[in-house]
């Protein structure tokens, strides 16, 4: 079946299988490999992308359901002017280690910054609990997100 959508601001029209996952479509068809496959059950958040500005787990989202939407991946987020501030602050706090969870984490953070849902430390911990990181122990991410939110 044919789907038409916007990916990182560019129009995309492609044939997909009805059961094809958005994650596979992005990685295999569009070669956007920033979204990562890990848990396959919407727990870890490594495959997070934005669909119409909201974070979704692309491992549990059909490519067909993305037709007519605007999808943003880390590759698209990295092109935005506001990304340089995220990049500077995450780098300064060493808020990443292996980097496998990082793209999904940044997409969730970016969406929640926009909606003002990262105001307090408790809110950050609660609202980012859907993005796992096995390396950092979260504190560096917490520090970076708190600084980003404070400057919003």
């Amino acid at each position, binding site marked *: 079946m044919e789907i038409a959508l916007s990916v990182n601001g560019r129009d995309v029209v492609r044939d997909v299988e009805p059961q094809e996952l958005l994650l596979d479509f992005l990685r295999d068809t569009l070669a956007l490999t*920033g979204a990562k496959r890990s848990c396959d059950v919407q727990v870890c958040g490594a495959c997070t992308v934005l669909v119409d500005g909201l974070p979704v787990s692309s491992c549990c989202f059909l490519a067909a359901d993305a037709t007519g939407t605007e999808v943003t991946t880390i*590759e698209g987020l990295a092109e935005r002017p506001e990304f340089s501030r995220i990049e500077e602050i995450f*780098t300064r706090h060493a808020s*990443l280690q*292996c980097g496998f969870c990082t793209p999904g984490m940044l997409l969730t953070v970016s969406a929640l910054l926009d909606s003002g849902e990262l105001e307090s430390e408790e809110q*950050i*911990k*609660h609202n980012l609990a859907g993005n796992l990181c*096995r390396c950092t122990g979260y504190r560096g991410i917490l520090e970076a997100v708190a600084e980003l939110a404070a400057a919003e």
Partner: protein
Amino acid sequence: MTTTIREASTQTQIGRSYPRRDAREKLRGAAQFVGDLLLPRMLHGKVLRSPIAHGRIVSIDTSAAEKVPGVVCVLTGTDLRDIDPYYGHAIKDRPIVAIDKVRFHGEQVAAVAAETPAAAAAAVEAIVVEYEELPVLATVEDAVAEGAPLVTDRETKPGLFHGLGELAPRDGNVCYRYRIDRGELEAVFARADIVVEGEYTFPSVYQYAMETHTVIAQLEGDEITLWATCQHPFLVRAEIADLFGVPVANVRVHVPYLGGGFGSKSYTKMEPLTVALARKAGQPVRIQNRVAESMVTTRRHNMTCRMRTAATADGRLLARDVECLFDTGAYADNGPRVVATAGDAAPGPYRWAAYRVDAACVYTNLAPAGSYRAFGATHLQWIGEAQVDEVARRAGLDPLEVRRQNLLTPGEEVRSGAKPLDAELVGDVEKVAAAVGWGEERGPLVGRGVSVGLLAAGAHPVSSAVCRLEADGRVVVLVGTTEMGQGPRTAFAQIAAEEIGVEPDQVTVRGADTRFTPYDRSTGASRSTTIAGLAVQRAAADIRAQLEGIAGTAEIGPGEHLALMRKHFGFAGGELIGRGEVAPVGTGSYAEGPVFWEVCVGAAEVEVDPETGFVKVRRTATAADVGRAINPQLVERQDEGATLQGIGNALFEEMVYEDGLLLNDTLLDYRVPSFEDLPSEMTCVIVENGDGPGPYSAKGCGEGALAAVPSAIVNALADAGVPMSELPLTPERVWRRIQELKKEGKWKQ
């Protein structure tokens, strides 16, 4: 080769929290992992895994699978008759795919290579296997019982890298045994005023590197090329060469970024099967595990332990007796090393009149168990330290005071024939205790605990590195260390920059390509900064010495490098090549092993809810006793990551097996720590006593916190009134223990 270390005061790059060199790539999603790579004509591999824990394979019918459109081939054990298909770096006990028998739930039975993942999955479904079920050895107790059936009847054949001296033959289902017996144990116990004893259980744990095991294999003639999620590319290279009968140099292993390792990607994992499948297909093949598959590829050993500790009435530790059974599953993997390291950790860093350790590595019908960060120490430290705290309670002493009295001091013997203690443990434990408010007033349901241990670190001290000073003044470091998040590419850039006299952003450190990168034993055992880092330092110092030779003076500014190279080569090309090596000879500290004792010191403050049994970790502190911190921020981040893994290990992580079947093989059912498990306070105390054998007196870190934190949590919970002898400390277990304590009249509330 000599290295001149400049005075710390003149160092500009060391002790500096230089930003990660890989941050930009990783933040932008541009960092490439094995699963992001595509090769021309690459096929997708999929593995058929055993649905039962133990059985004889009566027949495998692949005919329907081979007819699935897009399928190129199906591999079974019969395809491996031209080679000896058994591998294992410690013991060669594991077939590439099951031959005649399956020995654990999830074992590789067959594999399909197809043009699409969907075709591969459909073909796996179409393979028909008939099994005759056999009795399942689901626990270590079953496996060591009199008359227990054997998991394997093969004779013990040592692997290439067991590193354990003479390997004794298998004894029933015991594939390895580590024993220490020092002093007159029973006589000392007989005269002790205090004897603490107990039986303890440690769970099976999944490392959960977020990137699952992934391998691409390509064969051309007798050349085998791999892109693999491996921590030890040079050991994988040797095992693949050995298995498939090609020269070591014909095996090329590429390691891009790793999405976490924590030991789960140490040694050889999915590489042999991927090579065998690509060999049959005649095309490149990728196998990418799902989480459920990585969980049964390797895991942390579950264990049972009996321990007793003897002390005088005034809290002087006298003797310790330890017996433990480690469940290594159906194949040894790194079990023997895990057990030996556990045996070294078991007595703890105290002055004993006598101690005895008997640690066995036991085959069962569970998935193979191997390395996970701080193995051995994590298994035993929480038990030994719980007994030290119990001695303190019975002697009426502060646990900190008992440790001050009994801990080893620098230079004292840790184990006979091993490197003497190279750390200030009393200072370390006092620092972490202070960080969690030791001695401050607290509520009735709040407890505090400390923990001290040592972990034999460094593995085998063989590493080499090459530095290339290019004609544009930039430096490339070739070193085999795997970047899996711990930050060696940044630390090595700082070290090379310091020696050569450039900025770290002028230094590029890439991943291993064993065709060009010089030999490095492995990435693990907290060895990279210490050993590979020393090789990098020596290679960079070699460049510096060459520049000074060209200049005829040691006074060279960074702006003069290009002019000196032009003078030397006579044109705008050429490069200076520096060589650095570390080998277990020459520098006395490497003679006896371990390379260093990694310090495992932590403290915790917890609060227990007696109505639900829920344990909240309020504060943690860990000591990163690193000799010298090359990059203090990265040191802190290592300890923080290990702390969260320790909280998971202590409170809820457990692979649940029933009759040998793994019940919780998804992250829905196997929970790992999330943001919400972050303690309110998490302190990492960096201790720099200049006592490490690495560059600038550094020594490794990053594992010790994982051994110390669960132990400190257990001690803190006992301090709050709930002594526990089984991990994880789930609310149900803690609640049941509180009910028992109430019945016994021991609950203080």
